[in-house]
Structure formats: C-alpha cells, structure tokens
C-alpha cells in the first residue's frame, strides 16, 4: 500500500547473499547436463524402480522422478495426458520415467542406462485399425456434414469407395530439442529455449514448479528448425531443465540426443483415410463421405485441432455438394503426435487428391480436367462444407499459368508415348492444387503484440511475440516496421522473443507469424509515427499532412530533420518514443458444434506439376522436374517466400516418398536416427525445379501489406509427386487398374503396388 514502509525489494536477498551481481553470473553459466530415462516397454506399468546405481554413477549430481515435482506433473498443452515423468502407467515406449543431472553430457547419458526398472507389460495398440476397432480415442469423434450424402451416393452415375494410409513424419529439425535454465533470484528461473511457444513453456514451467508465471522468463532467439515440432514438444526440456536448475541452483542444459528426440517427442499424425464418393459422368462430384482417422499416439496434445484441420481440408479446392466428414482421434501406444507444418491439413487434402485421380482414372479423363470440373466457382459453387465462402478468382489464374508454364498437356502426352515403349522404366506426371485456410482454428490464438522503441540516435528496437525458426519472420517484420516508419531496414534491430517483453503470446504456428506479428508491429509504428508527426509539425510550424518521412528523416518544404535529430528533438520535448501494438484477426468465427462459420481469414493457393521417373524393377523413383506457381499475395520478401515454397515442397516430398516411421511389434521405434529414417538429401530433389510467385495478386483481405501466409501451404504442393508416382505405376498394366498406393511411396510400397497390379 502507498505510505507503507515496505522493505527494499532485494533486502532479503542482500542479507543471505543471494542477490546477483554481474560477476556472480559467470559461475552459474557453467552448466550441468540432463539425460532422460525412458520406459523399455510401450504399454503396461512399472512394478519396481531402483535408481541407486544411477545416483552412484560418476558425475551424477541429482536424479528426479515424478515425486520430486513440486507442482503439476502433467504438461498436456490443452488437455491433460502428458506426464512430465510417469508415475506407474506406461503408454508408449521411451516415455520419460526419470531424469538425471550430471557434470557432463556423457556422464548423464551413461548414468541413465544403469536404472533397474521392472514392468508388467501389456499388449500395445500400435495401429489405427486396431484403435478404430476398439473405439479407442484420445478425444471424441467429430462430424461435419452438409446435404443428403446417402441420397447423393445412391443416385450417382459413378461410385467409388477407397481407403489408403498416410504415414506420419519426424520433424528432424537439424537442431534437436534443447533448453538452458538459469536460476534467478527468489526462486525464479530464466530459460533459453529452442521453442515456437515460449508463453506456453513459461506457463508449464510455472505449473511444474508451483511458481507464478511472473517468476519464469522464457527467451527464444532462434531455432535450428521447428516445423511444428517445437510448439508443444519443447516444453518438457524446459520443465526438466528448470526443475534441476532450481533444485541445484545451477545453470542446466537439457538437450536430447537425436535418438531420444526421435523416440520421445511427437511427430506428424499418420492417417487412415476412406472416401465413399459419387460423381456424374463428367466427373463432377455429387457427394462424398469421408472417414479420416488420425493416429494421435497416447494423449490428446493438439490432436483435436489437428484432426479438425484435416477435416477442414478434405475438400481442398473442390466443391462437394453433399458431404459428410468424420474425424477420428485414434489412441495408440506410440508417442503423442503433434503439430507438423500443415497441422493435419496435408493428410486431409491428400484424400481429395486421391479421389480426383481415381475419378479421372475411372472416366479415362485427364486428371487435370476432372480437377478443373470440380473447382470452387463463383455463383453457388463457392461454399465449403463448413459454410465459408471461398474467394474463387485466384485458382484459375494459377492453373492457367502453371498449365502453360509447365507444358503439362504436351508432357503428359509425351510420357504416355514413352511408357508404351519403355518396359522397365515408367514415367508419370500430375498436377495438383492447394487451397489452405489461414488462421488458427482456435480463434483466441489469433492475436499478437509488439513493441517498438525509437532511440535518440535514430535507431529502432523491435520486439514481438513471434519466434524465428528460420522462416524469415524477423526480417519480414523488420521490413514492415522500416516501411511504416520510413527508416532503413538496417536501422531496425529485432531482439529475441521473451515472455517478459511481449506477454501472453500465441505460438508461432499456423503460418500466421507475419500476419499477426507484422500487424501488431505495424500498429505500434502507427502510434509512434503519429507522435513524431505531431512533434515535427510543431517544430516546423506546418500541417501534419505536409510532412514526408523517409530514410533521411522527416521533411516539410525547406524544413528537415534527420532521424537522430527528430528522435532527439522529440525526446527533449518529452514525447514518448516507445509504443505497443496489438492485433487480432477480424471477422473470424467458428461454431464447432454446428460445424459452421468462417474459421479462416482467407485461403492461400498454389499448384504444382511433378514428373517422376520410376524403375519398376527396384521401385526406385525420382522427381525429375517440378513446376510451381504459388500465391503469397503481395510478397513482403520474395526471396524468403520462394525459400519457404522450395523448402516446403521438398519437406512434403520427403513425407510422401522416403520418410517412413517404423515400429517393431513391441512398439519400439526402429527408425530412430538418420541412418534408418531418410529425409531428402539434395540428390532426392528435382534437378529441374521452377518456382514462381503469382504476380499481381494482393490479398483481397486487409492483411499486412496485402501479403499472404506462406509457411505451411507449399508443403502440400508435393502431393503432385505422390500422384505422379501413382500415374507412373499405372503404366505398368497399361492403365487398366487404379493403383492402391499408400503414402509414403517408398521403394517397397511402390513394389508392393506393382505386384498388386500384376496380381502377384
């Protein structure tokens, strides 16, 4: 209270030697190292646990189990189900049971192997099919429907009913999960974390340690790749590092080995997709019933929203008059799957593309024509199953440009001719579009904050809630700030994302980084600029409208001030040179119960043509050429955007071709390293790769400088490669049978498919 003689803020620390001076910090930065002990079974319970040998091991400083957690032990981000350390019940192989702190990384990892844990093992559920049979779900099934699907199917001229599986995907960010915790005063802790979601880590660390959120700071300067894998999965390292740091008053690093990272952290959801569909003789859909079943692993994590997004993308760019989509969240005894670039969207979208191919195959049409027949078009055929109206002007332009630029029709004809005479090598080509909804489907996450300071030398400091994982967010927002203020980009410095600078932030996810944080920064700049303009107009004795800002400073007629002069003059006149900005996406809403609303502010569009060459004897297949036209609205930074498109396509290509997750019968991940899990190397990328941004296509919605989000959508362009592989396989029996291809289309899967066609 005011008037109360409250003690000096640090009094209690000065009297016990706890107050930290700069020279004291150095000692803290000599870190200790964490290793995590995981379960040796996938399903069952722990019957006894003996960690004496671990404690006695060389270099070991501390060992913790769930009993040592002072606060909550469940770090589930939305729903419970993710114990930081398990108590008794084991739900997946390598689930964390205890953790060790040692003087070196090697010592910590060596000590972990000395644990003696006994289990009672149950039969694990490892696949979607079994989970479906048992109706074992992490969250209830959910349905979106429009129209009379059964009637549409019954009266359809052509009917199809197919099933295929889509594999999961390991993020394989080159920098694995890592957090450094530094203990502070009064039981507080600061974390340096490779993390897409510092605010959530802050909250969970506070929960685990029974601290208020204001005692925890999480800072993220950059990540060595994220891709969704550090949205919720970065929290565990933060919590363990913080727990040890507080217990031992030492800086602590928790960095997972690559194998532990692959076994202990979640991945992209695998799906089992089924469609029953009907169309007319031209191939135009009349009705579709989808069942999209996602493998969620042992807990909900973000699976509700991920399966929802799959459901919201199984239309892709096509109008489906009558539709019913059921999304299943299957529970398996595997690590809990999580966000991965596209967030379920790719797994839903690929179902629509498989369907288009099958219709074309049945009707013996060019698949591109079938796709074009089914595109959303204005005037009655432009409303999604969830009742959002689609902007229909962009896709036809993209298709036209890509069709011409890639010479699709001619090449398709050439390929058919080649296949007639080539016995063992077959070629295939496919053209697939992408329409991807932009916004978090959890509406409350569509908000952001930023701060902009102008210093008296004219330099600008920018901070916002978005994190930099390589996608170029920091430079894009800096460009936005520079453009709005009129300073050069070099004058703007972006600092690390910190929970004590901009609080209560959303994860950097859903491709929304620039849309949200760019707008927040823009808002801050507007406030600041208004103050500066008012000041300058007073100094110059002119109208605000007469002022012109640019990199040299501000001018009006013969009056001029450089940026340092302006900043200094405003400061002398006691004008605040620091501003906050805030933004929330307008006009979005979704009634999940009714399955209806406008969950997306807008859609990002693109299309790709991929051509593959297949060796039918070995199953080896390579993409020989890819052409892409992609819509990023008005690009803020074309080089960065093209980088996202190229990188996204290649990452999608890996997902659909070489990256295969394999578990043994007991639920142990066998593909737990780069030697057994194959991400694309440069040799796996198409030697001819043409990427174009769609020109003159400002976003119809009022986004930041009319740009469009670009992080996730390009990943789905790689669907064209998967479809092209099927096209090549179909040549094996001269296009008589539709190949039942699953994803990933590994060499083994391709050979299986070919054997299938040959009736072997």
């Amino acid at each position, binding site marked *: 209270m005011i008037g109360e003689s409250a003690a000096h803020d640090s009094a209690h620390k000065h009297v016990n030697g706890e107050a930290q001076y700069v020279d004291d910090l150095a000692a803290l930065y000599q870190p200790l190292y964490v290793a995590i002990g995981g379960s040796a079974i996938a399903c069952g319970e722990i019957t006894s646990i003996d960690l004496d040998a671990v404690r006695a091991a060389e270099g070991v400083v501390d060992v913790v189990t769930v009993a040592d957690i002072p606060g909550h032990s469940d770090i589930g981000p939305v729903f419970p189900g993710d114990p930081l350390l398990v108590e008794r019940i084991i739900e997946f192989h390598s689930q964390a049971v205890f953790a060790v702190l040692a003087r070196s990384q090697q010592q910590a990892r060596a000590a972990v192997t000395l644990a003696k844990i006994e289990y009672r093992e149950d039969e694990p559920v490892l696949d979607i099919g079994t989970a479906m049979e048992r109706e074992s779900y992490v969250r209830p099934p959910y349905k979106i429907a429009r129209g009379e699907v059964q009637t549409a199917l019954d009266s359809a001229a052509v009917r199809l009913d197919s099933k295929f599986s889509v594999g999961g995907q390991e993020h394989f960010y080159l920098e694995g999960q890592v957090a450094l915790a530094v203990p502070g005063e009064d039981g507080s802790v600061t974390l340096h974390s490779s993390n897409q979601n510092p605010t959530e880590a802050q909250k969970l660390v506070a929960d685990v340690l029974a601290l208020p959120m204001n005692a925890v700071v999480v800072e993220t300067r950059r990540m060595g*790749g994220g891709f969704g894998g550090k949205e919720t999965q970065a929290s565990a390292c933060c919590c363990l590092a913080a727990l040890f740091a507080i217990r031992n008053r030492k800086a602590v690093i928790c960095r997972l080995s*690559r194998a532990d990272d692959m076994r202990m952290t979640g991945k992209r959801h695998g799906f089992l997709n089924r469609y029953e569909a009907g169309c007319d003789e031209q191939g135009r859909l009349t009705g579709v019933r989808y069942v999209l079943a996602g493998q969620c692993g042992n807990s909900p994590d973000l699976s509700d929203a991920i399966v929802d997004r799959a459901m919201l993308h199984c239309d892709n760019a096509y109008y489906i008059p009558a539709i019913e989509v059921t999304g299943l969240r299957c529970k398996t005894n595997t690590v809990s799957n999580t966000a991965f670039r596209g967030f379920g969207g790719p797994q839903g979208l690929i179902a629509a593309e498989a369907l288009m191919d099958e219709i074309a195959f049945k009707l013996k049409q060019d698949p591109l024509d079938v796709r074009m027949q089914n595109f959303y078009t204005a005037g009655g055929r432009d409303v999604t199953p969830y009742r959002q109206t689609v902007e229909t002007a962009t896709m036809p332009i993209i298709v036209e440009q890509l069709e011409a630029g890639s010479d699709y029709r001619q090449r398709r004809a050439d390929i058919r001719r080649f296949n007639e005479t080539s016995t063992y090598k077959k070629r295939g080509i496919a053209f697939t579009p992408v329409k991807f909804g932009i916004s978090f489907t959890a509406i409350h996450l569509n908000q952001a904050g930023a701060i902009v300071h102008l210093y008296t030398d004219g330099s600008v400091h920018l901070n916002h809630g978005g994190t930099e994982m390589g996608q*170029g967010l920091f430079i894009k927002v800096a460009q936005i700030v520079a453009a709005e203020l009129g300073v050069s980009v070099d004058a703007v410095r972006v600092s690390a994302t910190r929970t004590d600078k901009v609080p209560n932030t959303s994860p950097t996810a859903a491709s929304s980084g620039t849309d949200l944080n760019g707008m927040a920064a823009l808002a801050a700049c507007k406030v600041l600029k208004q103050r500066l303009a008012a000041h300058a107009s007073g100094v110059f004795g002119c109208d605000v409208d007469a002022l012109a800002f640019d990199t040299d400073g501000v001018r009006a007629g013969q009056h001029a001030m450089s940026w340092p002069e302006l900043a200094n003059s405003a400061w002398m006149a006691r004008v605040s040179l620091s501003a906050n900005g805030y933004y929330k996406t307008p006009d979005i809403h979704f009634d999940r119960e009714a399955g209806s609303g406008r969950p997306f502010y807008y859609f990002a569009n693109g299309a790709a043509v991929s051509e593959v060459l297949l060796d039918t004897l070995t199953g080896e297949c390579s993409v020989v050429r890819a052409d892409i036209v992609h819509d990023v609205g008005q690009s803020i930074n074309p*080089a960065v955007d093209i980088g996202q498109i*190229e*990188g996204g396509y290649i990452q999608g290509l890996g997902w659909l071709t070489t990256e295969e997750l394999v578990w043994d019968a007991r639920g142990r991940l066998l593909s737990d390293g780069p*030697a057994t899990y194959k991400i694309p190397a*440069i040799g796996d*990328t198409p030697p001819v790769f043409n990427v174009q941004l769609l020109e003159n296509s400002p976003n119809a919605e009022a986004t930041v400088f009319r740009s469009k989000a670009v992080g996730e959508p390009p990943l789905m362009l790689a669907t064209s490669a998967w479809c092209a592989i099927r096209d090549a396989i179909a040549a094996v029996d001269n296009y008589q049978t539709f190949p039942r291809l699953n994803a990933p289309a590994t060499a083994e899967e391709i050979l299986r498919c070919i054997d299938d066609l040959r009736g072997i």
Partner: protein
Amino acid sequence: MNHAQQVDIELIVNHEKINCRVPVRVNLVDFLRNELGLTGSHVGCEQGVCGACTVEVDGTMVRGCLMLAAQADGSTVNTIEGFAESGRAGHLQQAFATHNALQCGFCTPGMLASALEYLEQGGVADRAAIRQHISGNYCRCTGYQAIVDAIEEVAGQTETTDGQ
C-alpha cells in the same frame, strides 16, 4: 573404459596453437565447442549423417562427430570461425546470404565447409557436380535450391577470374 581417462593433445585450430588435456572419448566437435568455445560447428545428429559438424582436418573436410579430439593430436584444424576470419570463405558467405541459401542456419557452417572444399578442389559452375559434392550435407529447411545457386555463382566467378 574409464570416462575420466585423459590424454594430452597439441593441435593448431584456426591458426592458433592449442595444448590441452582431453577425455579420451570426447569427439572433436564437442571439444571444439565446449573446450575452445568454437560453437559455429553444430551437432545435428551425432551419428555422422547430417554434416552439420563438418570441419577441416589437415586439408580434408571431416565429420567432427565421428572423430575423437584425441585423434586430432598433431593436426591442423579449421572451423567456420577460421574460414570466416581468414577470408577464405568470403565469397561463399556473401553468396549464401544474397541467395537466401539458409533459413534456420543450423546446417550452414557444415554446408559452407563442403562448398568450400568443392571450390578449392577446382569445382566449376556445374549444378550436377555441385549437387554431387554436397550430397552428404542435410538441410531440412531450404530444399537446397538456393544453396546450389550460391555455390554455382561463386564457382562461376572463380572460373572467370581464372580465365583472365
């Protein structure tokens, strides 16, 4: 084996003579990072596959995670910090930046090392040859196209200079 067993080594790192006592089982990249503070070389997979830890030992590019620090006794080692300081990789660094040949940047030091090796061995502006040479370095972000563009550009410049 006793973890604590140590060995004395002497080597030249980035033109500086180093005398050090290291645990026999510490690998070269951990030694460079933790003992010498040369954190530019990264640890991506620890299994010799990704190439993020690529450094130069006696003129050859090696995986720092597959070599023990003890094995580098008597060697000359150069890391990304050394390449940068000596100006050896100046053109490449510039080209990587202008071509946006990096996103998260975690692969970049290793990728640059491989690219440098290509150029210093007389590699020309031939995309197929460049692809072949850097095929052992993973990049999860860029899709590699911009990386090839950058190397191709520098190789092209070198060719022209050589021709003059």
